[in-house]
């Protein structure tokens, strides 16, 4: 059902986007009224990532997370299932879980002492029979639960009963998620709990960037070229022709890079000449130790192996706010390591978001390998990473720009359009845009955003 909201000044939200010209009004970025609509139309309707199963391996393990502005408890059940519970006492609204992580037999509200089972159901309260001689209304006094689905160990939650299944929500994007997160039978795990840091910008700025803005690398991350950590290859035709961006109608986006570019970075020109397995052995995919290559060969099919060795996914985004990273990193000693992990950009108001960053590793890796990954990640991504520390210079500035009366009349422009590739000419799903630069998958994110905001998405 289409129902474009009308803002207080009479503006119809849909009028802020020009779908033909591929641009929209900067007002959308951080308008408080639009932000409040997002809470209802995106955060309460889309599938939102709240963690990974390996954070809560045992029954009773929990982590505290947010869906939009709402605090939730993500907790492992005795059955092995995961529940996502609103972290608000149904009695007088106190926060029930007050720690970032832990293990609990039950949840206990400190205000009046009400307790709840791990599945959120009401367990008891002091003076229960005196308060409720007829018995308590157990349904009303239980914690509100979100729907939960898990894909490759990544936990998604959704408040909407009407929302499609996670499989429908992810669509053909799973082809690429599997190349990052389903490479061996054992899968991957977290390297530790996530970094949380606060950026004074709107959550959409980093989200749309990770949905396809490869173009910024040559400028914003120019220091890496100055330092000799990155070849100034983005200016070359060779680079342009070897960059592929995949977008799906659900708003997800992934960048896949011709593996020859990575081999060039590894300064190993023989990369082209070898078999798929030899390639994998000489430069294992991000976050995966050499010892696991056999497991990769057994787990993936021919098409997947070709994608992984010819055009591996490197940076992407699950709509609305989950950044994905799986790329190789030049280390100070000249060796090549990798960063493998996930970001969530969690709104904390129109002009502030929490940047959450997890490091991942393929299961079964040695402690030594895990340690190399920790070092490479701290060096390159997250708050102190020499790549990502520059990104948080732009998101606040864009957000401030949208606060000006004149500034917010500016446009965000996505004019660089490429024709999608012929579907028969690619090994997996989605629309594939080959060539650099291209705004296509980023624009795709915004189209999906407007679809959600105006009631076109279901």
């Amino acid at each position, binding site marked *: 059902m289409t129902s474009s909201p009308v803002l207080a000044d009479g503006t119809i939200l849909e009028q802020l986007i020009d779908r033909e010209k591929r641009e929209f009004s900067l007002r959308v970025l951080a308008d408080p009224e639009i932000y409040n609509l997002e809470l209802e139309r995106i955060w309460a309707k889309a599938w939102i990532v709240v963690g990974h199963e390996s954070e809560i391996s045992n029954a009773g393990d929990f982590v505290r997370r947010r869906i939009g502005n709402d605090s939730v408890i993500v907790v492992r059940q005795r059955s092995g299932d995961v529940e996502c519970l609103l972290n608000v006492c149904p009695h007088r609204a106190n926060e029930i879980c007050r720690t970032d992580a*832990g293990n609990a037999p039950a949840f206990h509200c400190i205000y009046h002492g009400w307790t709840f089972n791990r599945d959120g159901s009401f367990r008891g309260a002091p003076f229960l029979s005196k308060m409720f001689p007829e018995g308590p209304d157990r349904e009303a006094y239980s914690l509100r639960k979100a729907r939960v689905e898990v894909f490759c160990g990544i936990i998604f939650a959704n408040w909407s009963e009407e929302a499609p299944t996670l499989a429908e929500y992810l669509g053909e994007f799973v082809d690429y998620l599997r190349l990052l997160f389903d490479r061996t039978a054992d899968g991957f795990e977290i390297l*530790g709990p996530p970094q949380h*840091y606060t950026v004074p910008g709107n959550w959409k700025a980093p989200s749309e960037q990770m949905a396809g803005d490869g173009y910024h690398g040559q400028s914003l991350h120019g220091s890496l070229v100055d330092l000799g950590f990155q070849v100034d290859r983005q200016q070359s035709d060779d680079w342009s022709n070897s960059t592929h961006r995949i977008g799906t109608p659900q708003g997800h986006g992934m960048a896949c890079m011709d593996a020859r570019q990575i081999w060039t970075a590894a300064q190993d020109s023989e990369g082209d000449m070898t078999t798929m397995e030899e390639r994998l052995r000489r430069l294992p995919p991000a976050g995966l130790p050499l010892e696991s290559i056999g497991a990769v060969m057994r787990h993936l099919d021919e098409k997947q192996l070709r994608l992984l060795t010819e055009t591996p996914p490197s940076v992407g985004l699950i709509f609305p706010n989950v950044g994905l990273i799986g790329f190789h990193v030049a280390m100070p000693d000249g060796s090549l390591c990798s960063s493998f992990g996930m970001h969530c950009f969690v709104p904390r108001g129109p002009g502030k978001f*929490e940047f959450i960053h997890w490091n991942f590793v393929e299961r079964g890796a040695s402690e030594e390998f895990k340690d190399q990954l*920790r070092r490479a990640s*701290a060096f390159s991504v997250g*708050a102190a990473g020499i790549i990502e520390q520059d990104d948080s210079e732009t998101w606040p500035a864009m957000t401030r720009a949208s606060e000006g009366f004149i500034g917010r009349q500016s446009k965000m422009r996505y004019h660089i359009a490429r024709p999608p590739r012929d579907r028969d000419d690619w090994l997996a799903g989605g629309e594939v845009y080959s060539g650099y630069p291209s705004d296509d998958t980023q624009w795709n994110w915004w189209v999906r955003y407007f679809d959600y905001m105006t009631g076109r998405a279901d």
Partner: protein
Amino acid sequence: MAGAGTLVEAVDENESAARPGAQRVRSGSELYWRIHDFLIDEARLLDDGRFNDWFELLAEDISYTMPLRQTTLRRKGTGIEPRTPWFYEDIESMRVRVRRVMESDKAYSEDPPSRTRHFVSNIVIHETDRAHEYAVSSYLLLLRNRGEADNYELASADRQDILRVSNEAITLVRRTILIDQARLGMQNLAVFM
């Protein structure tokens, strides 16, 4: 031994740099004041943007780490989480970080630079098993002001250092930064602690 194998080992071993029962170097002694002055001078180099000079204070075998902090119940301990680093650096990665700021005009996260003020206090010094190395803990209050902001980004931390002291010089062999925030209140960690 300073070179603990992994981050987890380094932090476990070093959450307090001083061994139980270690001899304390009392304030008023010449050694105490030498180390005190080292930390004060170090802060001045950082705040003046003299990162090349600051880099000279680092030992070749430096371990510079900052583990995550989580909010946990009191009985669960300090919430320091060694499995996830904010910083996990050796001399080579520190060299790159310093070169990035000093040699590239595209290190945008700190250009224009922040105005920082490293306030160092509560310095406590203990002897270690090594004759010329001292376990030094200090409190850090970092104020960071940037661009048009009329306020400060703040960070406070307990720094657990190992300093190597010779007649000629003092060098920083190990720094473990135990940050107080479970949610870092900064848009990035483009500054040294």
